[in-house]
């Protein structure tokens, strides 16, 4: 293999609370690729990204990030937007403070500067609220803060777990534009989605999970009619090179 991989999971099993959530899952993401993880509720999408980032333990299989095992992964190059907004506690915390936590990674425990955090918030249209407590923000605004926390590292791999849930359409457009800019600059993206619509234009591949197994790994579901119209600007017209993982997919017309 010539180029390295950004994320590589092989034969991953995850059991939580005595239940097998993932069974022998393979997932490979190459530099600059945008991969959607699709599947019904409970199919294991979130568990797969959480296992890939070391949040939940695996019971079998191997995970490598940037060709390194988890123990020595280059965490600085990875940005993660969790699905759930952490339970808001009573201690007031500004958006800026939350985003600065994103500058810590691995054994790097210094928080960087306030200016870096404000710049990341600005990319999400949140600079004006940088010093407002997140407790006073709406769900959508909090979600944008979490996205800024992932972007502040300028990651080479962005992992998003249902990032558009609870966000209004205008913000989704800004967000998708930001992601698209990062993708063009070479950032790989793994995004857990319920429906591919807002990301359809830039997806290179879709991986569909069902009952903890991969049932499809190949082209994303076709974009809806309006995306095919000539006046619709495609951020990313066609999938990538026809080698490698794209080879073995065509059988799974699942999505």
């Amino acid at each position: 293999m010539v180029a390295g991989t950004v994320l590589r999971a092989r034969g991953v099993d995850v059991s939580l609370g005595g239940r097998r959530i993932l069974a022998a899952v393979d997932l490979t993401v190459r530099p600059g690729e945008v991969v959607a993880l699709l599947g019904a509720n409970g199919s294991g999408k979130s568990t797969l990204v959480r296992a890939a980032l070391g949040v939940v333990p695996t019971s079998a299989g191997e995970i490598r990030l940037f060709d390194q095992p988890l123990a020595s992964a280059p965490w600085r190059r990875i940005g993660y937007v969790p699905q759930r907004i952490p339970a808001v506690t009573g201690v007031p915390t500004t958006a800026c403070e939350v985003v600065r936590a994103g500058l810590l990674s691995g054994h790097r425990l210094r928080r960087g500067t306030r200016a870096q955090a404000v710049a990341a918030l600005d990319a999400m249209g949140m600079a004006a609220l940088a010093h407002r407590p997140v407790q006073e923000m709406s769900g959508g605004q909090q979600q944008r803060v979490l996205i800024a926390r992932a972007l502040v590292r300028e990651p080479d791999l962005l992992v998003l777990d249902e990032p558009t849930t609870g966000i209004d359409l205008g913000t989704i457009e800004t967000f998708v534009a930001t992601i698209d800019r990062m993708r063009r600059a070479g950032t790989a993206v793994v995004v857990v989605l319920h429906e591919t619509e807002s990301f359809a234009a830039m997806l290179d591949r879709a991986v569909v999970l069902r009952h903890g197994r991969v049932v499809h790994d190949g082209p994303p579901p076709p974009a809806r009619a309006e995306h095919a119209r000539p006046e619709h600007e495609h951020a990313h017209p066609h999938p990538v090179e026809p080698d490698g993982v794209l080879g073995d997919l065509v059988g799974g017309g699942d999505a």
Partner: protein
Amino acid sequence: MIEMLTSPLMQRALVAAVLVGATAPVVGTFLVQRRLALLGDGIGHIALTGVATGWLVGALVGLTPADALALPGAMLVAVLGAVGIEWVRARGRITGDVAMAILFYGGIAGGVLLIKVAGGTSANLMSYLFGSIATVSTTDVGWTVALAGLVLAVGLGLRGALFAVSHDEEFARASGLPVGLLTSVLAALAALTVTVAMRVVGLLLVSALMIVPVATAQVVARSFARTMALASAIGAAVSVVGLVVTYWQDLPPGAVIVVLAIVVYAVTTAVQHRRHRPDPTVDPHPDLDDDVRVEQEA
């Protein structure tokens, strides 16, 4: 007043009170953020076994006074117990609250048992349960300065990382932060704070000094950093005022300090509530466009 400040006993007590009052809320802010507000209380219970263990060892090797090892014993057992709670919690084998309950009651029972074995009585434990700042010795002040300095240095030095794990443990894990190590450090800091504060407010009221100033600060502050700074100031202030009150009135200092802290909390909450009645005519999101336009009645 001058007389009070020139009394060596009062000087020692004031130093201990300021340090403990300022340090405890720093750790407390992280604990509140982690929703572990009662951890300090539990560690206080466990520390009782430590006090008695120190006493027992002191008696066995024939030290005078017999409680010379009470503070080191409390420190050691409290740190082990706190890190143990964190370990059990992280493994998720049994639910955190049940694990804590077992450790806490075990801590009290162990303390009462061991003190008896050491030839003392439960009454000997009273000064640890309710504090005895009036009997603070120069050695005690030395311990307090050293431990409070250590807790502040680690707590403030690692505040970015401790904030990250306290705020969102999942994100901290996905960032490759040493989450287990950091939560253990926080538990150990809480345990050290408990043993430092033991002499001032007593093991039963330790948690109050860690948590109540934070509860007060978060009513008015608008950021984590401000909450911590304000809580620390409130903690130091109520500790000093409480101590001064007991110089003139024969009252138990620990209880006075905690009651003061709660009064400050109640007044702050009441004032804030009055000042910030929500105005129903204000749009909470003036910067956002309406994304639903009502064209006509359906």
